[in-house]
């Protein structure tokens, strides 16, 4: 019940903070407008897939080779993607590294491996997604062939049989500037929720109310849970306003699987609020904590593709971007929206929740220590 008491108190205070709410809701909306207009030329409505080339080597079972050739033919016919055979793996890897091809597919015996170049982020992901789809269908047919050889004949004789379900991939669409910034501004501003977590803890120290709270029979975990849930609720509420505005008033594309996208957003929000709380207890001086947050956010946002897409930045930035949790969050969301690819969702959620867990642990260790009282 103490936790609930603290959550209610937090919500009352945060809802009454009109200035912060206005900044956290209106600013991302304004920036979505400005940035989407300013950078509209950098984003294409459709990707020219004809320019995309994929390198491959094939040394597999006959049935797999036949199926994959059929797959390549279909992709080339439907999307215009060029498939070029490399002589050996080394050549394939080098060509991808040198940004000559979007990706390199290696088919060995009954395994398929894909090597992507991040510069071709979207097209490489698209090819990967289609190859995954192919592999799933091929595996399924293999299983059927083993258990019911008669059935496989019937399936293969079906003229509509295809290894690639292109229409399910939303393949020819890439994010417009509006689509892009609707997502990235929301995830970027969620980084600023760390300030909510930070102020929430710091203000209790400044007001000396933390002294009073800890003099009462409130347990530390009740206090921290109440704080984090309260801050999380208000941050999510602000994010939902931005999301609803972007999706329904600006018609930005948030894809068809909204629950998964929001799950990634929720994980990010838990991370940022926890990091904010952690910063508040780690740095006794208020100015230091604020400075750390204000430096970290733009850096993480830039490396996460918050301002410009990572595909438009250099190799060095791309390599460095792995340190930004926002990169994983944005990547997961874009993959779900545009490729129906869920492979990055557990990574993004794992990173966010992992960081949040460490932050909460540190906060719990430091909270209530004598100096902070």
């Amino acid at each position: 019940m103490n936790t609930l008491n603290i959550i209610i108190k937090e919500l009352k205070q945060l809802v009454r903070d009109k200035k912060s709410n206005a900044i956290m809701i209106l600013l991302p909306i304004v920036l979505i407008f400005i940035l989407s207009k300013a950078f509209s030329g950098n984003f294409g409505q459709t990707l020219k897939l004809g320019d995309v080339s994929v390198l491959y080597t094939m040394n597999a079972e006959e049935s797999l080779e036949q199926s994959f050739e059929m797959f390549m033919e279909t992709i080339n016919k439907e999307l215009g993607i060029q498939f070029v055979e490399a002589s050996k793996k080394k050549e394939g890897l080098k060509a991808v590294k040198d940004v000559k091809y979007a990706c390199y597919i290696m088919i060995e015996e009954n395994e398929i491996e894909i090597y992507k170049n991040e510069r071709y982020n979207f097209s490489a992901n698209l090819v990967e997604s289609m190859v995954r789809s192919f592999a799933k269908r091929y595996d399924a047919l293999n299983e059927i062939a083993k258990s019911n050889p008669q059935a496989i004949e019937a399936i293969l004789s079906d003229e509509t049989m295809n290894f690639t379900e292109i229409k399910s991939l939303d393949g020819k669409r890439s994010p417009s500037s509006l689509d892009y910034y609707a997502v990235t501004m929301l995830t970027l501003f969620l980084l600023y929720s760390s300030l909510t977590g930070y102020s929430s803890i710091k203000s209790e120290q400044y007001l000396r109310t933390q002294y009073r709270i800890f003099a009462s029979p409130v347990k530390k975990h009740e206090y921290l849970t109440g704080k984090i849930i309260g801050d999380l609720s208000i941050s999510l509420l602000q994010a939902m306003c931005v999301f609803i505005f972007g999706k329904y008033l600006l018609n930005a594309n948030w894809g068809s699987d909204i629950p998964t996208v929001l799950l990634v957003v929720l994980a990010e929000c838990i991370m940022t609020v926890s990091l904010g709380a952690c910063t508040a207890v780690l740095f006794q001086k208020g100015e230091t904590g604020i400075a750390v947050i204000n430096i970290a956010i733009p850096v993480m946002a830039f490396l996460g593709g918050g301002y410009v897409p990572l595909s438009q930045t250099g190799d060095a930035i791309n390599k460095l971007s792995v340190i930004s949790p926002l990169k994983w969050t944005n990547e997961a969301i874009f993959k779900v929206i545009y490729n129906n690819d869920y492979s990055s969702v557990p990574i993004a959620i794992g990173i966010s929740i992992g960081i949040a867990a460490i932050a909460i642990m540190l906060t719990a260790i430091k909270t209530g220590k004598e100096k902070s009282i």
Partner: protein
Amino acid sequence: MSIVRIENVTKKYGNIVAVNDLSLSIEEGEIFGLLGPNGAGKSTLINMITSLITIDEGNIYIKDANTKSNANLTKSFTGIVPQDIAIYEDLTCLENVKFFAGLYGLRGKELKSKAMEALEFTGLADKAKDFPKGFSGGMKRRLNIACAIAHNPEIIIMDEPTVGIDPQSRNHILQSVKELNRRGCTVIYTSHYMEEVEELCSRIAIIDYGKVIALGTKQELKSIVKHKNEVWVTVKNNIDKIVQEELKEIPGVTDVEIYENTVMVYSMHESENLESIIAYFTSKGLGILQIESKVPDLETVFLTLTGRKLRD
């Protein structure tokens, strides 16, 4: 019966000993005063009583429960009025009191009625729905008290509750302390204001360098210095003409101190040397502005015991 027992408690911060092997007993129903200059260890002691900081050595018992092993239980017996005003300016008075009282387990209608009672007690009932942002210092101090008493604690710890407020609010607070005590509350009261402690407290502990250097009723403490008379002479000018050694030659004079243009002459009790002291000043041709014969008070006691003034 002791409601708070402090047994050989020590607290160190690095090499600094904030509280040094301190023992005290606070009786149920009394107003107990803790006196001491800044850094004497009062706040550290209070923080240990309320389990806000750990005890290095020794034990504190509240209603026979050890604060180390039963912190949540002992915390539930107490209410604390911190030295700094600890309220939320973006919550109304009623919301403030309800929030803090809620932390002690009060819920629903009981919570609301107890919160209103606390506001009435502190004279803020008509401000229940107001935000304390525009309140005067005195009103904020009263709200600070309301937040500590709504859950009806058996022990109220008040750490300098009257700092920086107007005389009217101070008087209100002092009356409130008496009333709380009359209702059965044990009050632990710390203050720099000697007259408040003299007016309120039935027993007083004087703390310095983390130790209790004197403990007793007001009369018992004053008896420490009853052998002393004190005469303060304020002169117009030429204070450099005064030779402390010459003054000490007057029969009964034990000590002489000079602060700016005031000379403090300490004598043995019943030495009847006032005429001689005045004669000394007139013989030096010093214009006397004021002569004050002081009755021993707690300030004198403190000065005698520590060699320092309380507000040093």
